[in-house]
Structures are given as structure tokens and as C-alpha cells.
């Protein structure tokens, strides 16, 4: 089953939620719609579910236009952000709700519900009511309910954002495991870039109702197509640089520019892990602070011109690179993105 968004437009009064969205989700793929709040990702998902009707454009499921099909005939399972379980039904009846609506016999309903509850890791919770379940358990039941009718498409609307950090990580891994096991085409809406990068086959970054970039997580992270994507996914340093030809000078090195430069004086976008820090007694830079994160440590480094950059270094180097240490700052040799200068009109940074 594929899902296709064709030139989807939707406005609410003066605000435009979707501004001509084009995107195709392949069979069995998990695609994450990622973007800041108000970027239209939830509206796009609700157009697939049938809770929203686009002003123009179409939603195709498996090549068939379903734009005007009512929500209860869409054959799409949906998991909501939170509190979507029917409070008057226990977990089993919540999962079996769709079968009950279809007047399937009780035995079949119970068998299917038990099967699905086992699938989501809650085999013994069938008799519990939603208020007796934790947030994570509620979302598992909601997932089981969404899968109960063997839908063609699974829609996840920020299903983890109301949960604790730890539960969030385990549950997202479990969702991914289930999705791969069932091979179900899935659209996962989230504003959490780490979540999107870690579970999706492809990530679609949305901005103001338009598709900014779509690609595999590594591609989105390493080769962001636009400065917006670069900023939104991961952390970026803005380092002043000077463009000459198709290269840019930064930290005393000349790096190839990815794409076209907007002018001579630019900001070079550099990931913290691409910043190299080496101790040097006569180095022009100074480590101001260090926060240890286990496998890595993030350093805040002051350059000779008083500007600051963030650098990620291996965790085992953290002791060596303590605050107060004089260092030299370099950069990994690879093509870099540049944007119009926003970091003041300083000269290119030298370390």
C-alpha cells in the first residue's frame, strides 16, 4: 500500500496549514513527518485519516483517490497523542472496538484482542481500564486498537510526546519493531528530530505547509538540503566565513561549499561533531565549559575573536579537555553549507 499526497492545500482563515504538499510514501515504509509546531504535519496526517478535508489537492491510498471518503471507511489505523482510549471500555474492548462495530462474534473479538495485546507486550492487561494504565501502556493499547482491523495504513500522531523520556525511547523502538514485522505502511508525525531520525526509513521535513526535504535519516542529517533543515535537525554552529570561488575559508582552512553561496561574507554551518579541538598551550581558543554525556562531551569553546562554538568530542577525551584549557580549533574536511551572515559583521573566524 502506498500513500500519496498530491498538491495538498489547507487553510484555516488566515493561516495556511498545507501549502501544496507533495509526497509519496512507499509500500511498507515508515516515513516521519518532522517539523516545528504549525508546520502542517498533523494536518497532513489528518487528511489521510479523513478528519480533515483539503481545500485542494488529493490523498491517494494505493493509487485510489480517497480525498472524499469518510473517515470510517478509510481503512487507516490511527494512534493519537494521548487520552484517546475510550474511558468506559477496558483494554480488551478498546482493542476490539472496531470488530464490535462490525458485529463480529464475541469469541473472535476476544481472540483478536488477546493476540494484539500480546503483540504490544500487554498480554495480561485486557481487563484494565484506561485510568488503571500508565501513559505508555495506554499508548500500547491505542496501538493495538489501531492495528486490530489490519488497516492498510498506520497513522501515528505524535504518539510518544506525552510520555516520559525513557518510556518514549523503548516504545519508539517497539513501534519500529512491530512496523517492520507487519510490514505496514506508516506515517509518523513528530516534532522530535531524534525520534524521527531513529525510527524512520525516510524523514520528511515540513516547513510552513511545504516539503523542505525528504530522505533517509543519515542524508537529512549529513546533507541537509536547506539551512532550515540543517538548523532544525541536530545542532549547528554558525561560524563566520569568507567565500572565494566555490570554497569558503573558516577556522583557517578552505572547505568546498555545498550548493551556492549567497555572498562573499557568509555563515558556515558546522556540526559540533565536525569541530576538532586539540590542546595547545599557545592556542587562540579557550574551553569555557564542558558537559559530559557519556559517549561524548559537549564543549563550549571561545575563539580568539570572542565568538563561541560548540564542539562534541569523544567522552574519553573529556578529562583531558577540561574548562580553562587553551586549545586549537579545527574542522573536519568536507563540503559545508553556508547561509547569509547573521552572526554579526566579523571577519572570518581564526583559531
Amino acid at each position, binding site marked *: 500500500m502506498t500513500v500519496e499526497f498530491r498538491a495538498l492545500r489547507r487553510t484555516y482563515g488566515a493561516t495556511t496549514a498545507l501549502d501544496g504538499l507533495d509526497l509519496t510514501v512507499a509500500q511498507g515504509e515508515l516515513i516521519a513527518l518532522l517539523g516545528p509546531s504549525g508546520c502542517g504535519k498533523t494536518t497532513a496526517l489528518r487528511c489521510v*485519516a*479523513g*478528519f480533515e478535508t483539503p481545500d485542494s489537492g488529493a490523498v491517494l491510498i494505493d493509487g485510489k483517490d480517497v480525498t472524499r471518503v*469518510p*473517515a*470510517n*471507511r*478509510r481503512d*487507516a*489505523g*490511527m494512534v*493519537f*497523542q*494521548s*487520552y*484517546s*482510549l*475510550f*474511558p*468506559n*471500555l477496558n483494554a480488551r474492548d478498546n482493542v476490539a*472496538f*472496531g470488530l*464490535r*462495530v*462490525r458485529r463480529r462474534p464475541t469469541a473472535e473479538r476476544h481472540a483478536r484482542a488477546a493476540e494484539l495485546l500480546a503483540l504490544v507486550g500487554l498480554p495480561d492487561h485486557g481487563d484494565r481500564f484506561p*485510568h488503571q494504565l500508565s501513559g505508555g501502556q495506554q499508548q500500547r493499547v*491505542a496501538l493495538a*486498537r*489501531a492495528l*486490530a*482491523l489490519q488497516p492498510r495504513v498506520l497513522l501515528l500522531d505524535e504518539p510518544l510526546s506525552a510520555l516520559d523520556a525513557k518510556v518514549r525511547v523503548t516504545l519508539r523502538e517497539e513501534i519500529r519493531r512491530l512496523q517492520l514485522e507487519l510490514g505496514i505502511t506508516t506515517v509518523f508525525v513528530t516534532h522530535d528530530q531524534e525520534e524521527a531520525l531513529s525510527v524512520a526509513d525516510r524523514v520528511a521535513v515540513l516547513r510552513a505547509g511545504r516539503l523542505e526535504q525528504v530522505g533517509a535519516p543519515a542524508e537529512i542529517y549529513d546533507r541537509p538540503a536547506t539551512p532550515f533543515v540543517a538548523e532544525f535537525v541536530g545542532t549547528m554552529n554558525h561560524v563566520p566565513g569568507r567565500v572565494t570561488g566555490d570554497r569558503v575559508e573558516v577556522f583557517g582552512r578552505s572547505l568546498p561549499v555545498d550548493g551556492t553561496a549567497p555572498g562573499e561574507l557568509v555563515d558556515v554551518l558546522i556540526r559540533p561533531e565536525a569541530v576538532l579541538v586539540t590542546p595547545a598551550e599557545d592556542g587562540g581558543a579557550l574551553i569555557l565549559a564542558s558537559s559530559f554525556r557519556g559517549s561524548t562531551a559537549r564543549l563550549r569553546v571561545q575563539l580568539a575573536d570572542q565568538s563561541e562554538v560548540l564542539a562534541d568530542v569523544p567522552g574519553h577525551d573529556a578529562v583531558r579537555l577540561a574548562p580553562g584549557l587553551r586549545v586549537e580549533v579545527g574542522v573536519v574536511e568536507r563540503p559545508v553549507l553556508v547561509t547569509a551572515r547573521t552572526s554579526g559583521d566579523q571577519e572570518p573566524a581564526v583559531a
Partner: protein
Amino acid sequence: MTSARFTRVKGWAPASPLLLVVAVAFGIPAVMLALGAFTVPGAPGEPGTYGLDNVAASLREPYLTKLLTSIELSAVVAVAGALTGTLLAHAVLTSRSAALRESVLSASGVLANFGGVPLAFIWIATLGNSGLVTTSFGLGPGLLYNFWGLALVYLYFSIPLMVLVIAPALEGLRPQWREAAQGSGASVWQFWRHVGLPVLTPALLGGVVLLFGGSFAAYATAAAMVGASVPLVTMQIADALTGNVLVGFENVALALSLDMIVVAMLVMAVYLPLQRRSSRWLR
């Protein structure tokens, strides 16, 4: 041991004035009521004896009719008020106009607290024998001064009360539930049957109970409007209290009061557990 007891006593100390006042102002009248209801007056100058005679008498004619009429009137008002109040609340809450929602909810707050004799006067001016609607449409006299007229007037505060009771429950119905139901293939009707109404049931029944209690206890409106033409237990009790009846009926009035409290408690016994359940659902 001693220290645990001590802190316990100390913990309750701030509540002692309250408990004392409640014991005096509520406890004593309650005990006197119960004692009186079970006291059979002796001959003049003789002390009474305890017995069930008053209670038995209060459950025979002519009193039984009054008790039953009161219950019937309250039940009619409660059910009709709950249904129309819910419909009205739903119509208002799903409206796009915030001004309509706000003004209906505020008006409900006012009208739910509007009762007693002033309420009777307003309806007498409208539908009384010389009321404007009665005379303009040439309706016959006595329209208002019967069981159904009283029910119509009681609904004037009961429906707004229901709106106030049911509105939070209606607002507690989350959009996700409807959408999740639709996503599972349910029609609008199926959503209401399997989810919407079951979730609202505690609040609905709670509203019925509150409305019942409000009408059951109402006295002044009926007294001002219908006098004795609709036999109600509250008016019988008031008559006994103000000396409008034969001597010796006072203890029957106490027994009637006891009957009323028992009815109210039975109804309330339905309400409290339901209320607890609904508050759990509608977090």
C-alpha cells in the same frame, strides 16, 4: 503508641469547632426530628411513648398521596429536565458562537438559582388566570395551577441546572474518542451508543438526581402558586408547622419529614458512587 494517638488528636483539633457547631446546629435538630417521629403523644399531661404509629400514619392516606405526588412531580421534572437540559447544553456547546455559549452558561447560572416565590410570580404573570399569554390566546383559567403547570414552572430552574451539570461532562468528551471511533469504522450513532452515552451516563444520572432533589425539596413556589390544589408533602409539613392543622398532627409531620429524608437519601445513594466514577473518567 501514645505519641501516635497524640498527633492524631492534635491533627483533629483544628476541626473541633466545626464538628461542635455541626453537632449542635445539625445533630440536635436531626435527633429531635427522629425522636419526635417515633414518639406517640400520650394523653394531655402524660409523657409520650415510642412507637411506629406516626411513621405508619405518614404512609397512609391522606398523607401517602402527598408523598407520592411529590415523588411523581420530582421524577417527571428530573427526567424531562435532564433530557432537555442535555439537548440544550449540546446544542449550545457545539455552536460556533462563543458569545452564545458564554451567555447561555451565565444565564443558566442565574436561572438555576432562581426559585421560590419570585419564580411563581413571573409565571403567574405569564400563564396565570389573568396572565398575558393566557388572555392573549384565550386559554382557559387554571392552566398553571395543577400538576403539569407546576412541572412546567419547576423546569424553569431545573433545565438550567442540568445545563450546568452536564456541560463539563460534554466538554470532557474528547475529540480523539470520536476520531478513534471513526477510525475504527464506527458511524456517528455507533460512537454515541458505545462511547458517548456510556461516558455521559454518570453525569446524566447525577443530573437526574440533583434535579429530583431540587424539585422534591421545593416548597415556596408551589405554596405561592397552587396552594392546596396539588397535594405535596412539603406543604403538608409546612401546614403542620405553622399550626394550620388539627392538634396532634405534629408528630406525623415529623414522620413525614423523616420519609422525605429517606427518599432523598435513597436517591443520593445512587448519585455519589456515580459521581466518583465519572470524575475518574473525565480527568
